[in-house]
Each structure stands twice: as C-alpha cells, then as structure tokens.
C-alpha cells in the first residue's frame, strides 16, 4: 500500500476514534485496532502497540479539557487508579499463561449483559443522589460540575469498594489483553458508584492514560511501537480527542448515555469476534 494512502486512512480513522473515545471514556483502540489489522493488514502486535499510544493520546488530550472544566472527579480517579494500575501489572505478568480467547469470550459476554442496565437507564439525566457516608465520605468521593447551561450540579459516590473491585478487573484485562478497558471503567462508576454519566466517562478518560502508560513500557521494550504506524495514530487521536471533549462539555447526560450504549455494543461484539480468531 502507498504510504500516503496508508497515512491518510489511519489519520482519519484515528480522528474518528479520538472523537468517540473522548466522549464515552474509551481509548479508541476499538476503532484503531480493527482498522489496522483488517483494513491495513498490520500485524496485531504493532496494532496493540499503536492502540496503547492511542489510549494515552485520547486520555491526555481529552482530560486536558475536562479537568479544566471541572467535570472529571480527580479524587475518584486517583483512588480507583490504585486498583487499575495494580491490576494491570498482575495482568501483564499472567498474560503468557492465560488463554486470551477464553477471556475475550467471557468479558465480551459480560459487556453484552451490561448493555441491559445501560439501556434501561436511557433518558436518565442524574442518578438518585445517595447520601455520602462510610468510606466514600472518608475519601471525599463527592463533587460538583457545571452543566451545559451553567447550573452547578453536585453528586456523591456510593459503593466505593464495588467500584474498586470493578477497577481491579478492568486493570487485569488491560494488562492481559493490551486494551484500555474504558468500557469496564465507565460501567464500574456508572452502575456501582452511581456517578453522573459525564463524570463517569470523563473520569474513565482521565484514568485510561495511566493504565495504558503502565503497559506501554513492555510494548516499547518488545519493539512493538512502529513509528510509521504510531505517528498518524497519535496525531489523529489528539485532534479527535480535543474535538470530542468540546462536544461533551456542551452535551447532556442522556445524549452521552445513548452514545455509550451504542459503543458498548460495538466493543462487546468486537471482543466476541476476537475470541473467535478475528484480529480486531
């Protein structure tokens, strides 16, 4: 394939991945990996290497907007990163001993099941605000953010231990499969901790960069970061992430949830396809 064509396809796909990734709290690997492997014929190892760079790009690019706009909950993010980083390290150590296709089948199916609570709450603006107590109170897991029309919305997190457990699983999957596992992070915060949708997706966005950075060293050392593949991915994803972040700041929670439900279905199907040997 001619380089110019290769770079152009990859750049456009990465912009698209950055826009959607930044809105729903994913890293964009779900778009970047199949474009690289199925469309451009790139080896899956280089595709995962590029995907890790994409995740870090989406995370940092979008978070630079969200954190300034006070939508990301820094405390929730940092507390949960304890679980995602340790999970990612354990996952990376176990990767050689675990059958990845079985894992993909199990977790793809779990994601399909979590579509049910996500779809049932379509249209919901704010979750019922739980009382701040126990561990959540000690950790200060509450906050407020400015809604699109300027009104300040406050919220409290609940069930931090369940959230932490979900994040251990998300971290393990990141280390095992080389993915950002943003979908699991959003679900942990949305379903378990009952955070507003925007706070869940932007805090997931904030966290995936750290999870991906934890596995980046290994992929770099293995020689799986190909500059010709990674350069257009990084440039495209950064452009896309900033565009997506500007959209989210003005969008409403129900809109974000609808987009998340669609992306969740795509991620689940891709994982199940991957378990059947399709290189996505």
């Amino acid at each position, binding site marked *: 394939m001619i380089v110019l064509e290769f770079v152009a396809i990859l750049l456009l796909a990465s912009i698209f991945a950055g826009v959607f990734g930044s809105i729903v709290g994913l890293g964009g690997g779900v778009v970047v990996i199949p474009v690289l492997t199925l469309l451009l014929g790139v080896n899956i190892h280089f595709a995962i290497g590029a995907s890790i760079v994409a995740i870090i790009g989406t995370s940092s690019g979008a978070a630079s907007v969200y954190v300034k706009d006070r939508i990301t909950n820094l405390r929730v993010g940092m507390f949960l990163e304890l679980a995602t980083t340790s999970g990612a390290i354990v996952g990376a150590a176990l990767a050689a001993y675990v059958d990845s296709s079985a894992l993909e089948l199990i977790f793809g199916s779990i994601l399909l099941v979590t579509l049910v609570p996500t779809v049932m709450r379509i249209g919901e603006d704010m979750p019922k605000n739980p009382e701040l107590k126990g561990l959540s109170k000690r950790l200060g897991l509450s906050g407020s953010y400015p809604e699109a029309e300027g009104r300040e919305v406050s919220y409290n997190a609940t069930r931090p231990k369940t959230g932490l457990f979900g994040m251990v699983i998300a971290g393990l999957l990141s280390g095992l499969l080389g993915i950002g596992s943003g979908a699991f992070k959003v679900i942990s915060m949305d379903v378990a901790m009952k955070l507003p949708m925007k706070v869940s997706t932007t805090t997931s966005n904030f966290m995936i960069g750290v999870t991906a950075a934890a596995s980046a060293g290994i992929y770099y050392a*293995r020689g799986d970061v190909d500059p010709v593949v990674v350069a257009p991915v990084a440039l495209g994803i950064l452009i896309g992430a900033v565009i997506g972040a500007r959209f989210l700041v003005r969008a409403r929670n129900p809109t974000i949830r609808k987009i998340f439900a669609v992306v969740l279905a795509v991620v689940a199907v891709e994982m199940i396809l991957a378990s059947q040997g399709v290189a996505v």
Partner: protein
Amino acid sequence: MDSGRMDSVIGDVLRYGVILSFAVILAGTGILAIRSGASGISGALTYNAGSIPHGNFTVSWAGLVNGLLGLQPYSVIELGVLILLATPVSRVLASVFLFAAQGDRLYVYITAVVLALLLFSILVTPFIPLFNA
C-alpha cells in the same frame, strides 16, 4: 491551594504535554515526508506492514540520542511518543505535590502509591522475564 486551582494546574500539565508531543511527532512526520520525497520514492514507496517482523522496533537511549542528533525521522517520532507517554506520569507526579500543598495526606499516599506502581511497571517490568514470556 483550593481544588479549582488544582484542576487548573493538572489541566495545564496535560495540555502542555499533549501540545509538545503533537509538535514533535508532526516534525518527525514532516522530516520523514521530506526525506522520502527527496529520494524520489514518496508516491511509490510501499509500506507493507504485514511483512515487518514482530519486535522490529527496539529502542535504546543511545540509539535515540544518536538518531536525534542526526535528525532521523523515526527517532524524532519516538521522542514525541515518549513525551506523550510521560504526560500521564507527570500528571500523577504533579498530583502528589498538589495534594501535599492542600495538606491532604491521605491523597498524598494514594497518589504516591499509584506513581510507584506506574514507575515500576514502565521502568522495571520490561526487564523481568515473567513479563516477557
């Protein structure tokens, strides 16, 4: 320091990291385009991704510095990717100090543990055989 100020500092760390890495990767890509154009192969140069062996792009600090001194496009792109990789790490490092400035000891510990795990994972695990099996 209040939490709004903290948001603003962390936002800045992320923003400057992203802008710098974008500029460096763009420069590397530009050099690559000019060099391949100068040798008259730009349009026809084929990139057969499937034929490149797995693990072909090992980097060493010495190789990176040499490549940068010679303005090698791959090395410039690699530097940009490393800056991008360093951005979330710097963000965690900055949070340790920002929580300390707020006098929030619990979160100083939490972020310091995250930083230690992160540095262990990036700098140490590539040299442990268990992680490269």
